[in-house]
């Protein structure tokens, strides 16, 4: 087991001007499960492949424990890529299927057996060790395949979108299994995914990356509760955060006909580049229906509603007077509609105009120019 350190690492593919990964500094603590998440082409897989030794590092260095592995061959790095396309060997017992790589490496028989038994215990396969794969269910076979990586006792596990070749149902099961397994084994793990739900549910910490640049690293709740910039705010969370740009006047955000008070400390941080505007973000669960004349609320024309039994969702358009200065620029997805979670018993009808109140303590404010957090 070991700590992994990316120290100002840059990767520029031959022929490219822009780096695919730019000046990345990131540490994965000993035994930590770190999830690297980001959209298509953000450099997350490149980062993992640099750690694996599959991609060259143009600048900076990578450490595993106290060893500088920057130019080391993959097989000398003591890493395991989990969830390669393992198939099982039909004539070998489960124990041999798990331990054959150790046999190749010349590990003594006793030690192989010991390590295999330990892995089998973790994987709940002890009673199957002397059986052939034929006698196992698909789920057990999958665990035998995981066992192969475990018995090697590598310093680091690398997982690159390991669930992408499973169908949706198996994905959820396997997700839970991998996370539980990693905690039991306590092996430093770098896990790459495009899926923020996977990141939130699995990682000890999450690193969000965009266009080769690290955006924010932190525990799932930190990223969810205090996103450092607009990108992280929009990327983490499902349904995603409502994010709009509004004009600021007298310390208040103007939303259509309505105004909402902004914390002084945030407004003070706005600069001339922000051109008198502010980015206001709030999560669907941090807003509520308000009375018709209630202050500190804005108007929403309901475009659609969903009743999920436990939750209700309102999707709508913020009413503005359509002047350029006041146009609310929507930065979240959700088909450009504002999403509000409410009690399903209180769902309005489509076409209604309702008043929405944002919990002031849960408001996320950003500078339109720098896209950085203000509060």
């Amino acid at each position, binding site marked *: 087991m070991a700590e992994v350190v990316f120290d100002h690492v840059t990767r520029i593919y031959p022929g490219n001007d822009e780096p695919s990964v730019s000046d990345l500094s990131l540490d994965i603590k000993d035994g930590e499960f770190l999830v690297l998440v980001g959209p*298509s*082409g953000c450099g997350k897989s490149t980062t993992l492949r640099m750690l694996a030794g599959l991609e060259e590092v143009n600048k900076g260095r990578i450490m595993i424990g106290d060893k500088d592995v920057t130019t080391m*061959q*993959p097989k000398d790095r003591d890493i395991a890529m989990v969830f390669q*396309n393992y198939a099982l060997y*039909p*004539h070998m017992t489960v124990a041999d299927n798990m331990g054959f790589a150790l046999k190749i490496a010349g590990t003594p028989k006793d030690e192989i057996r010991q390590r295999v038994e330990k892995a089998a215990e973790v994987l709940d396969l002890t009673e199957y060790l002397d059986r052939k794969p034929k006698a196992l*269910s698909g789920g057990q076979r999958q665990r035998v395949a995981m066992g192969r990586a475990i018995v090697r006792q590598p310093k680091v596990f690398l997982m690159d979108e390991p669930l*992408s070749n499973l169908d949706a149902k198996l994905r959820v099961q396997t997700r839970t299994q991998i996370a539980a397994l990693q905690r039991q084994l306590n092996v430093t793990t770098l896990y790459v995914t495009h899926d923020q739900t996977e990141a939130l549910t699995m990682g000890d910490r999450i690193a969000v990356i965009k266009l080769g640049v690290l955006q924010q690293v932190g525990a799932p709740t930190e990223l969810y509760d205090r996103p450092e910039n607009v990108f992280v705010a929009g990327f983490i969370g499902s349904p995603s955060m409502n994010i709009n740009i509004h004009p600021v006047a007298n310390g208040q955000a103007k939303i259509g006909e309505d105004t909402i008070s902004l914390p002084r400390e945030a407004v003070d941080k706005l600069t001339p580049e922000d051109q008198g505007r502010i980015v206001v973000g709030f999560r669907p669960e941090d807003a509520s229906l308000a009375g018709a004349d209630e202050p500190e609320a804005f108007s929403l024309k309901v475009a659609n509603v969903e009743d999920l039994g436990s939750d209700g969702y309102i999707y709508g358009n913020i009413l503005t007077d359509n002047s350029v200065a006041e146009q609310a620029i929507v930065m979240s997805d959700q088909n450009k509609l504002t999403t509000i979670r409410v009690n399903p018993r209180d769902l309005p009808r489509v076409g209604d105009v309702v008043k929405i109140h944002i919990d002031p303590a849960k408001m996320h404010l950003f500078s339109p120019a720098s896209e950085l957090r203000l509060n």
Partner: protein
Amino acid sequence: MTSVNINRATASSLDPRAMKATSIKTTADPSSEQEPAALHITATSSNPRMFTLPWERPLATWPRDLLANLPRGISRHVVRFVHVGDDVYAMKEITQRVAEREYELLRKLQKLELPTVNPIAVVTGRHTREGEPLEAMLVTQHLKFSLPYRALFARNLRPDTAERLIDALAVLLVRLHLAGFYWGDVSLSNVLFLRDADAFSAFLVDAETGDLHPSLTDGQREYDIDLARTNIIGELMDLDSGNLLAGEVDEVGVGNRLVDRYHSLWSALTDVDSFDPDEMWKIERRVNRLNDLGFDVDELEMKTEENGNRVLVRPRVVDAGYASRKLLRLTGLDVQENQARRLLNDLDAYRASTWRQGEDLEIVATDWMREVFEPTVRMIPPEYRSQIEPAQFFHEVLTHRWLMAEKAGHDVPMAEAVQSYISESLPEYRLDSEDMKTINEEADAGVVDDEMNWQGAHAQAGQGKQVTRDQTDKDANGHEVKGHDAANTRATEQTDVGGQTGAGTQKDRDRAGEEVPSQPVFEDTNGGRSSLRSVYAPGSLDAAADQDDQDDAVWASS
């Protein structure tokens, strides 16, 4: 340093042929992909029968009468060979993203003329009749005459088979790496082998984990090689556990052989040679050596050292296929490299023996085709036409004739050699039905991504839905018997409630020393022989009809 750089291609961009390989473009972000609501087929073939297949059923439950009984390799996914008109397609059930990605990659590799299976289609938006979504499917063409390594080991092969397979795999890996393909999962299971004169040719069949780059880093190549070594040793250890490996094979030694062969081939192809300026004739020697290895040299990159004392030469090797391209040009025969070399040698011998050295090789080649090659391969008995490639047959007859001549002390006429070869050696090409069954059962034992099988796991004891699956298999076994011998099946159905007799019957038959051809592509499981010719004839109808007769002959004896 003066530089005579003939190679103008920038190393940074992908081959344009690969760039325009397909309309399917998978992004690195799976969330941007939407599963289509209705069945969607992107195909390179216009075979209308593709639409008539039971896409609404999980592949593992497709009716046996659609399936071709061919040996399958080990895979973690459900894979089946399916008759589609005159073709046999390999179908693999995987997620949409993986299916599209692999289809796209295989298309690119095809455009780069690399030895891979031919992608036919990617099928998405599958749903059951009840509307439940099903996984996508990747469809590839079954590579005719090819066999997975396990089927090769199931036959009595020469003891050095493992080594020859490794050599073929090393060549394949080098060719893929030269083209910038990082495989990520090299193993014997992920290739198919074709006989190529006395050697084998390897074809990539699984590109799931692969990636195409403008060029590979040493780390990528070394990782592939290391993984290949581990996988090969594991695969051989597995054969050993099943007593399928000759005692003297050293698994680790064979695995290490791949590493050695790869490195020596790679350095032969890519190393920079250093010559004195008056030794330029050595360049030609280097090029000839590369041609002997089967590789074409596209360009030479030549630089002189600053003091002008030495010339540094690096060949830019494009691909293997030197001899086969030459043969294709001369005769129109499209065969493997070693076969081509053998055929070209025979063509040379023909030219010399007919005193036509002065004539154009193109003209001599036409006569050689008409007088030598075609009459010989026409003698392949119909029942073997789906099992041995004509060029391989020709090669083996030549070898056989040489051995006969040596024994007899004089030349042996071609026709006599062919007859002798057919009766003495050709039967080795048959794979008995028990072996076939074992191979496919073994393949099933490794499948991880079969949902029915998975949910069995969650019922702990492997009960629940798995039971349904077992019954399906048993039914299927019963069906299998029906296809060959309707009368026998009727008896089976009456007496066998548990469903095991089907397998038993087959076993009994095999004990009686019978064999079925290794690629009974014509196997029909609908019961009726009459339907065979019309629906499942592969290649030419005549061949199918003949094959069918042969099947009858074989089964009639039971």
